[in-house]
């Protein structure tokens, strides 16, 4: 199976051969044109472009890190680093017995709090609905927030999780990656925390480099400041 990859920018004609246009390409006559800055990939009979830039677009079931920015008496609004604001209903936290009169939202979550959440629902007609009602979700009490471009998240995770495991094992850090590009790093050892943050930033800045995994390993193994 051919897997030709090419760097493209918007307007670049990838091919005029009869492939099926998939993500981030359009068909104009017989030209298949990229609509994003990224890497074009040909699979079997289809072409898509993996973008290297752009905001996070919510997908159902994605894990995201969000920041509470406001609330009404019935729900919270979250910044999830997307074009749309996340919407967390009070029942999700207080349960079915929630009463707007009795229960005060800011007692559980207030502006500035960070949460690990999941996208529960999203369609084009309304803002994404999020949930924190799960064991691995909820308010983040400690840790360091690192922001990377959402398009670099797959690179940070790596094939079958190899990149992120490499970083966690070399530093002793626990890392929670939001699909929206926000990453929380916790580490008991200050040097481990610093190295983990540095490794994450390295992936963000060098995602296009071929031997990135080796470069990151090298940096993690080196002693002292660089």
């Amino acid at each position: 199976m051919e897997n030709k990859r090419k760097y493209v920018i918007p307007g670049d004609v990838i091919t005029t051969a009869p492939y099926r246009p998939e993500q981030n390409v359009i068909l104009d006559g017989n030209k298949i044109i990229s609509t994003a800055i990224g890497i074009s990939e040909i699979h079997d009979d289809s072409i898509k472009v993996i973008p290297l830039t752009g905001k996070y677009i919510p997908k159902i079931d994605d894990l995201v890190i969000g920041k509470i920015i406001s609330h009404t008496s019935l729900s919270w609004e979250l910044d999830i680093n997307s074009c749309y604001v996340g919407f967390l209903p009070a029942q999700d936290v207080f349960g079915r017995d929630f009463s707007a009169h009795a229960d005060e939202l800011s007692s559980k979550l207030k502006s500035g709090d960070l949460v690990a959440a999941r996208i529960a629902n999203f369609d084009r007609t309304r803002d994404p609905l999020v949930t924190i009602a799960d064991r691995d979700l909820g308010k983040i009490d400690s840790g360091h927030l690192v922001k990377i471009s959402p398009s670099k998240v797959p690179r940070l995770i790596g094939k079958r999780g190899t990149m992120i495991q490499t970083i966690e094992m070399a530093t002793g850090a626990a890392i929670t990656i939001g699909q929206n590009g926000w990453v929380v790093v916790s580490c008991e050892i200050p040097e481990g925390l610093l190295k983990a943050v540095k490794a994450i930033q390295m992936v963000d800045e060098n995602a296009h480099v071929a031997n990135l995994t080796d470069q990151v390993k090298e940096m993690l193994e080196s002693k002292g400041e660089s």
Partner: protein
Amino acid sequence: MTSISIIDELKKSQILELLEQGKRVDGRTLDEPRKLIIEINAIPKANGSARVRLGDTEVICGVKIQPDRPFPDMGDKGIFICTAELLPFSHSSVETGPPGPDVVELARVVDRGIRESHMIDLSQLVIQKNKSVVGVFADNVVVDYDGNLFDACAYAATAAILSAKTPKWEMRDDVPTLVEGGESYVPTTTIPVSITMGKIGNYIIVDPNGDEWASMDARITITTDSNGNICALQKGGNGGFTFDDVIKCGEISVKVGSKIREKLKQAKEGSQ
């Protein structure tokens, strides 16, 4: 500009934790300003200009000099006007339209710092007394926001004025007319330097960055001149300073200000 962003609580508690150990998130000491880069003559067509980077805050100041009518009761002095504007791409929360109170305060504080120090010798900028004088306009535009616009704009305006050249005009047939080859540096008497300090808890920090700015309870901007005298001051934010705080801030502004003054001098010398 404490409302420019909602800081996440994790960051705010980290800032306080580190301050208790005498440290800051970016590794600076409490009285250390960020790296300052001054580029003179960034806009060659203007009479003077400077592009300043204070950490990740970036400001460009352009100085335009042209003949103008004097102010009614100041016919023997030239005119100096300093403005400041946040460009809409400097931060996601900036809105277009007329400036709000934060930006108006910024412009007026920067203007006062330079004016009250008598930096520009306005008496030398008269073409014809009571009729025609030289107007010096220093317009600051903020390109990128990361806290402490007061100092960034002040340094940009000061550097732009220090390196600005004014043409010479003469009255001919009752009209100010350009004299070819009569250019000279704008006459200056001193180099004002503003130092802005923020208060977080009980700690005073110099040159707060964006996150520190969003976490602080109050701030104070103090401008000193080349003689080490304090010539302008502004307290802002909804917290308060003790008497000892304010005295300490005065001392810091003289000490840190003199170091920044050296940088401004070097920038001017580098351009000549």
